């Protein structure tokens, strides 16, 4: 596999039974790369450790006053230099290629797994794990994969050199052959502790970074209200803790460095001592002594790979275990409506089924009916219940129990990172009589689009944002217009003008090509909400379910959006969960679903007149009699206490 051919057309099916098995699976898939890398490693290291031979040969030639043999030593050096350099470069290329192909493969597997798990993933603790594998573990796995072939080459070289030295100069060689394994193994017992301290240090550093980014993230709050010193003090403590942990960790590495100096040094002393006496007795040449001395110093290079592989394995083992665990996740059958969304085989069938789906949308649990082609508004007192009903309408698995009436603790939507268990499944809605969780997933999602309370804007340009699977009937301009995104376009155009200083493109900034940062953080809540709405409108599904699509939008704009959506969705089925009179007034029909049951159907005005509870929910009347009327409902008294501020004689005026 060449790097330029990445990504893989198909990353394959990994063996995820355990961490080591996953590593073996990765290794089997790049066996050729591993062998190639090990062979080049052999060339490199063999040439490297042969160098002392040339040095010793040269010194001996000088001792013997032989110019021709000195020249030969020179020629030998040139040859070895070429081999060393070539081997090193090729080893590096092969080993790094192994790293990159393995990392790319794991990343590809992760992205496929993420899509397969889809919305199920966001509810699982596993979401954090997937990200952790991608950001941290892949590199550690890659490290092991890369180091493996180098280690293989180093091990073979070391053994070969020891054997060769014994053959070349038996007496001195034996000393080296005994000493080298001791050198190779000596620091290994220190490594786990060093690795542990390094981990501690990383944890502390992570904590300090977290504190710092948390402080920066809330900096506007701090600057607005105070407390800088408190947070600086906290950060200083954390930062000093990192320093202490790092020094503690450095102490271990300093010890290892000392051992790495002392042990080879002792071996060298032994070689000098024994070698000198041998040379004195005339049993070895001076050149041979220099060769053995030099060989020991050169052997230190392959020996380092013994330490590296030990470190790499101890780091990558937990990483491989986590990667295997994440890749083994399945969309459980109770959560999956039908086929997984990426399954190509089901795709065609899904489209066909989607084409057949249509008609009235009916939720048997609440009795809510949305007639085909109309704009239906739904008023629920409880936003959690609204979220669950919206889920059912799209055939999404519902978590948190079918309208169990628990209004108590949670103010969140039901599909955040819901922490409560599933209380059982409610029947999904029927579209034209067909249960949505019984058709293929693609078909269900194509027919009904549920925009939840917190839709995510994926990063990219505005054009990319709106480039979603769609019917093609609604243009981006129309959708943006209906969702009242004019000021968002202006803001984006200004931002891009400020960025480029009009450098590229003489025709001025194009808001459609301006990048929206991750999750649209550069935009206000209202702007994000309107862009998400535009994206849903451009999709133009048979049935569109919108859950509080304008909760962060001001009343002026909300009124215009209501008109725009109504106009754009003419003839299509649209369901809006809202309690805003501006939207309700523009709906064809309003269904009132307090406590999980549809109790009233009619137009906004009809319901206002006939249902006092409905009136209380949507108008938030502040008057005593409204509060009395609404008493006992889950929504609680509707007062907001903003009154009662003593009115001062007004002197607000406008000049100019």
């Amino acid at each position, binding site marked *: 596999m060449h*790097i330029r051919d990445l*990504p893989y057309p198909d990353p394959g099916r990994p063996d995820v039974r355990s961490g080591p098995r996953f590593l073996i699976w990765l290794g089997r898939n790049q066996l050729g790369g591993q062998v190639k890398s090990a062979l080049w490693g052999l060339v490199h290291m063999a040439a490297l450790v042969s160098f002392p031979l040339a040095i010793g040969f040269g*010194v001996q030639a*000088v*001792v013997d*006053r032989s110019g021709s043999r000195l020249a030969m030593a020179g020629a030998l050096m040139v040859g070895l230099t070429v081999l060393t350099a070539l081997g*090193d*470069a090729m080893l*590096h290329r092969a080993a*790094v290629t192994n790293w*990159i192909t393995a990392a790319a493969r794991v990343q590809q597997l992760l992205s496929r797994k993420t*899509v397969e798990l889809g919305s199920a*993933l*966001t509810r699982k603790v596993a979401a954090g794990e997937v990200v952790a594998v991608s950001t941290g573990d892949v590199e550690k796995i890659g490290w092991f994969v890369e180091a493996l072939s180098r280690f293989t080459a180093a091990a073979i070289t070391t053994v070969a050199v020891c054997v060769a030295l014994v053959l070349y100069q038996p007496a001195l060689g034996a000393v080296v052959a005994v000493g080298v394994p001791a050198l190779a193994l000596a620091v290994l017992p220190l490594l786990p502790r060093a690795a542990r301290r390094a981990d501690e240090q990383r944890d502390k550093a992570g904590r300090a970074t977290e504190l710092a*980014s948390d*402080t*920066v*993230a809330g*900096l506007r709050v*701090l*600057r607005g*209200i*105070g*407390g800088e010193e408190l947070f600086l003090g906290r950060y200083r403590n954390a*930062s*000093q803790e*990192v320093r202490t942990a*790092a*020094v503690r960790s450095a*102490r271990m590495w300093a010890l290892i*460095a*000392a051992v790495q*100096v002392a042990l080879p*040094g002792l071996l060298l002393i032994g070689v000098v001592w024994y070698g*000198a*006496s041998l040379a*004195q007795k005339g049993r070895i040449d001076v050149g041979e002594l*220099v060769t053995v001395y030099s060989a020991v110093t050169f052997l230190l290079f392959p020996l380092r790979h013994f330490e590296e592989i030990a470190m790499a394995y101890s780091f990558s083992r937990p990483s491989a275990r986590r990667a295997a665990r994440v890749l083994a996740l399945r969309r459980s059958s109770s959560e999956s409506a039908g086929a997984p*969304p990426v399954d190509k085989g089901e795709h065609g069938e899904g489209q066909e089924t989607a084409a057949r789906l249509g008609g009235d949308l009916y939720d048997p649990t609440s009795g809510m009916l949305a007639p085909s082609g109309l704009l239906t508004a739904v008023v629920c007192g409880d*936003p959690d219940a609204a979220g669950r009903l919206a889920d059912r309408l799209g055939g999404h698995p519902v978590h948190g129990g079918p309208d169990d009436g628990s209004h108590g603790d949670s103010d969140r939507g039901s599909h955040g990172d819901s922490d409560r268990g599933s209380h059982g499944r409610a029947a999904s809605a029927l579209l034209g009589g067909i249960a949505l969780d019984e058709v293929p997933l*693609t078909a269900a999602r*194509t027919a009904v689009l549920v925009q939840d309370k917190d839709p*995510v804007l994926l990063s990219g340009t505005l054009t990319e944002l709106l480039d979603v699977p769609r019917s093609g009937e609604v243009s981006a301009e129309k959708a943006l217009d209906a969702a009242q995104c*004019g*000021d968002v376009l202006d803001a984006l155009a200004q931002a891009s003008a400020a960025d480029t200083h009009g450098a590229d493109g003489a025709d001025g900034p194009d808001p459609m090509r301006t990048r929206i940062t991750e999750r649209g*953080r550069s935009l206000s809540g*209202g702007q994000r909400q309107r862009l998400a709405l535009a994206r849903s409108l451009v999709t133009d599904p048979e049935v569109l379910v919108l859950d509080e699509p304008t*909760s962060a939008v001001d009343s002026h*704009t909300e009124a215009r959006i209501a008109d725009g959506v109504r106009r754009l969705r003419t003839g299509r089925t649209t369901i809006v969960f809202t309690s805003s009179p501006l939207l309700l*007034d523009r709906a064809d029909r309003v269904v009132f679903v307090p406590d999980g049951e549809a109790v009233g159907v009619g137009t906004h005005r009809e319901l206002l007149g006939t249902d006092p509870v409905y009136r209380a929910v949507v108008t*938030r009347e502040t008057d005593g009699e409204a509060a009395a009327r609404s008493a006992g409902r889950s929504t609680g008294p509707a007062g907001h206490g*903003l009154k009662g501020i003593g009115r*001062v*004689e*007004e*002197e*607000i*005026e406008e*000049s*100019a």
Partner: protein
Amino acid sequence: MIGVAPPAYDPAAPESATTLPVGTPTTVRAYVRELLRRHRAAFTVLMVVNATAVIASMVGPRLLGGLVEDLSEGERDLHIGRTVALFAVALLVQTVFVRMVRMRGAVLGERMLADLREDFLVRSVGLPPGVLERAGTGDLLSRITTDVDRLANAMREAVPQLAIGVVWTGLLLGALTLTAPPLGLAVLVALPVLVVGCRWYYRRAPSAYRSEAAGYAAVSASLTESVDAGRTVEAHRLGERRIAQSELRIRQWTAWERYTLWLRSVLFPVINVSYTLITGSVLMIGGVCVMRGWMSIGDLTTGALLSQMLVEPIGLILRWYDELQVAQVSLARLVGVREIEEGPADEGVVPGGREVRADEVRFGYHEGSDVLHEVSMRVPPGTRLALVGPSGAGKSTLGRLLAGIYSPRTGRVTLGGAELARMPAERVRAHVALVNQEHHVFVGSLRDNLLLARAFAEDAELWAALGAVDADGWARALDEGLDTEVGSGGLALTPAQAQQIALARLVLADPHTLVLDEATSLLDPRAARHLERSLGRVLEGRTVVAIAHRLHTAHDADVIAVVEGGRITELGSHDELVEADGAYAALWRSWHQ
């Protein structure tokens, strides 16, 4: 084909212009000098210890050279015992000092790093609120995470190791030349190869590695986004596209990997060749010299072994040099925060009352396009003013001017006759607070989250503040009360609880004027309603400027200002505006049948 061109797409290219300044070379140099001055003593000790270790390491080759000399001369008494003893002492010294070098290097590096990151945060929390409001915190955030991380490596390893490497190389070369001056020439043979190769490499490497790192980060970021948006991805059937997106990122990243691999494919042979060239030419030049009788065989051996030892320090320098280059960029970004002007804060400006006033205020975010045009208004103490109008009309901007966060381009915004723009942020916030949608819960205890508003408050005061915003119920139910860890990683609070904490902070900070910008708009209606009750209590007796999304908020205000196109188009009480039958009245009718 030989060579790989750098990929066309550069993931490290800034997505949008950096919103905060980047340090100029002068500032960076000044900062580095200051840092070194602060740690001068430690640095000197490190160098001395390092030199000792290096000199001890040269004893071995020297002794072997002597032995070879004696052996080749046919000397009978080699003093092997004395030689070995000397060798052992030198080894002991070397071992002890190498350990010390590593320790001292780490201690020094960690101390400089701690200084640097703490300095940065000190500067960051001192930034003028207007700068933060405008630039956002994203750029700052990436500096404190990515850039501090990159510098960590440089400070912890690169700076000490480079210093060590340079001293080490210098000493070895010195010893080599001292042993036999002609051997110094051998180094000159290798130098041109090394210099040319390294120049080629270092001219390309730092930016290439930055791009590579950014490319790799983008792979993870793309996946993180898919995970984060799992529900949206499924609802919009974006699965295939997300996979394609991930694979595109992988292709872009690996293209850079391929390029940097090519750079190293050039550098590695250059380094390998340089090493062996040094040793080889020492041997050849020395060999000739010995045969001519200009040099002893012992000096040649010592020289050859010393030259072999050059591998390590040169490797050290090469290894850490590009890290230093990368670090320089990060350092410039960190130091850049120091260049932000504090603004013309004047301790002498003290408000003489509570009336907020805007006089013919013009303001714009970009030159040549004003968002507000000639706005003038007066908000007497205790008044509740609602700003209503369509998105983008300038409501929020006006609110921020009244809260003293921005300074008007022309005109004045005053509090009790004193200009807000000229007051230090610490003084402004004692009087005026801006409450927006951002209800950040800090990582830490609930107590810390409240104490920031009043540093030395007693627990009883904190409970009273929580009680004032109806939050004492759930707070008392917490197992560890005020010591409960909240924020990311701790107990997750609901948005409504987070907002209650923000309000409790206001109770503690006790400013007399509040600017509310859509404070409750991101909450679901039920939570918002609940919260508004608490809010009402907090607002009592204060001057309030509320940027209103919901008409019922406007309805309750003493005065409503309709903002359209950067101007105030309608002004009056609810009843007056309904009477006047303008834009507000039309909206109100539609809203409230």
